[in-house]
């Protein structure tokens, strides 16, 4: 569905910067991130822990914890800047036009309320509906996310559900008001592998049936390859590479993306070659390096990389890497093919 990249985006994030402030100083979690999400597409945001991928999405809905602060940027949704909207107007959008699913279904549901109540309260908050109408809608939603004997399970408490079932409840809550955009923050990370498949399949089916746009945040490239249309690769609070999923997997433009792909096992490959880990560890975001944050771990690092932060080179498929500068040395597999 790369054709979805055409037209007006439903969400347009520009130059988003978010920091956390503590006694130890400022931690720059997100340092100027821009991306678009188009109606009906699934955008994957991939990166390792601490890359800023979750913070980016939490910033868009302004759901950061007390120590986090959005320093600059805009997030245009439906013609409104979510970052400039007043709190009351933003509350009308949260859970309504934008639904959100979180990583850990074991802790994301309130243990003292029935799951039915947690769905129903969302409907009642955003829709003109009586309680019984909201209840009927909740049953419909439970059936939609394939929770068996939906009507009876409304009265259950979260602790009476398995992890996979709880995540289905979370999805039902997120979809309660027919959102135009669904943000799924590592929705399968905390689940068993078999359950991961089910939830991922469910998300893909629902997206196809309901037609909303989805942002899928994950560190799992397998998940990304399976369901997304476009990818944003984040590292050190920055977008390192972005492009349609096929292009990006076939011709990764950034050494970091190449490293990520090389560190994933390919079960179709019988050559018994060893997986290649990326050496080193991510930069300390309390003191981010002046240049490219990947410099210290990059096999192709040049003097220029440490000196200055590269811009994004390219258009629909772009990478933040000096190797794509016209005067950069040629490196097979990176800028030779891409050039």
């Amino acid at each position, binding site marked *: 569905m790369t054709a979805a990249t055409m037209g007006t985006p439903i969400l347009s994030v520009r130059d988003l910067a978010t920091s956390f402030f503590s006694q130890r100083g400022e931690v720059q979690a997100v340092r100027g991130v821009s991306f678009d999400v188009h109606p009906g597409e699934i955008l994957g945001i991939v990166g390792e822990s601490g890359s800023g991928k979750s913070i980016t999405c939490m910033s868009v*809905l302004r*759901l950061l*914890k*007390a120590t986090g602060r959005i320093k600059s940027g805009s997030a245009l949704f439906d013609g409104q800047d979510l970052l400039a909207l007043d709190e009351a107007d933003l*509350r*009308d*959008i*949260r*859970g*309504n036009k934008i639904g*959100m699913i*979180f990583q*850990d279904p074991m*802790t*994301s*549901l*309130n*243990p*003292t*309320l029935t799951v039915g109540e947690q769905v129903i*309260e*969302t409907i009642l*908050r*955003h829709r003109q509906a009586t309680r019984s109408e909201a209840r009927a809608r909740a049953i419909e939603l439970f059936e939609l996310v394939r929770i068996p004997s939906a009507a009876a399970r409304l009265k259950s*408490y979260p*602790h009476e559900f398995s992890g996979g079932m709880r995540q289905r409840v*979370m999805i039902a*809550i997120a979809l309660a008001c027919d959102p135009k955009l669904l943000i799924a923050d590592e929705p399968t990370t905390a689940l068993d592998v078999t359950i991961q498949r089910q939830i991922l399949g469910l998300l893909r089916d629902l997206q196809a049936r309901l037609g909303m746009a989805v942002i899928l945040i994950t560190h799992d490239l397998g998940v990304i390859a399976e369901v997304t249309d476009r990818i944003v690769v984040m590292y050190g609070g920055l977008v390192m590479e972005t492009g349609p999923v096929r292009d990006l997997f076939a011709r990764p433009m950034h050494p970091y993306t190449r490293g990520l792909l090389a560190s994933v096992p390919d079960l179709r490959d019988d050559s018994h070659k060893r997986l290649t880990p990326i050496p080193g560890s991510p930069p300390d975001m309390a003191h981010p390096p002046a240049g490219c944050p990947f410099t210290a771990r990059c096999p192709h690092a040049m003097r220029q990389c440490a000196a200055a932060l590269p811009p994004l080179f390219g258009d629909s498929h772009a990478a933040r890497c000096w190797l794509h500068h016209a005067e950069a040395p040629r490196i097979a597999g990176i800028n030779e093919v891409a050039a």
Partner: protein
Amino acid sequence: MPTYILQRLGMMLLTLWAIVTLTFFLMHAVPGGPFVSERMLAPEIAAALNAKYGLDQPIWVQYLSYLKGVLTLDLGPSFKYPGVSINTMIATGLPVTLQTGLLAVICVVALGIPMGIVAALNRNRWPDTAVMMIATIGVAIPSYVIATVLLYVFALRLGWVPTFGLDDWRGYVLPVFALSGFWVSFVARLTRSSLLETFEQDYMTTARAKGLRPGQILFKHGLRNSLVPVVTVLGPVVANLITGSFVIEQIFALPGIGRQFVLSITNRDYTAIMGITIFYAAALMVMILIVDLLYAVLDPRIKLSGARA
């Protein structure tokens, strides 16, 4: 649930029996007795008194006859005040203690919890600092010091309230304030820390992501989860407040049972000591049972199973 409550009541009776037995023998192990005083009684009179109250019997006979009385809800006659039964003693002292105690409980709940909420919502800003300062003072300063200072300022200097007695509502102000001061402060601190911990939970982020209003988030999602530790403390606090405080009742000259309890100990008024101990133990156990039942209401993960007891 009903089986659970029945089992608990059974356990309570067993506990009460243990308390009665322990108190009875401990009390008799202490040298002296109700009729020992500085002015020596004539031996015949002492013997007559001992015979009248059954103190000349072997101790196990006394124990059994007392136990029989307890089972028929008769706590016996006072040894110190002739003609006054312990039942009457509790019945006259209790209303006074209960009134001030319940008012103090209301203060603890109606002031302590809101103070904690305000502090938590304004973490590290001035309302938080103010509440925490008041609460720290309240926890640190003993109630008799507070009571004395309050009496001096509001009763003696300003004359707004009487120095003793409960003739009208103004008489209640200082005793209730002095009684509840510590617990208001304690509950405020506890509510604040519990709420701040709840705010960090993932489901609170979910509640915000659903677009719920701040009031819904605080009361429906936040407070209920934060109240379990507060309720835990409130149970014994209620038992404590409604059974009276010797110090406060003494300072404000209130004829409550807290005062009677301590006087009965100095008087070696055996039946009074026993009676009030039983009463206090029963009140405490009932409150703890209520707290346990409330847990299940507050948190559905807590199952009250008959098998546990």
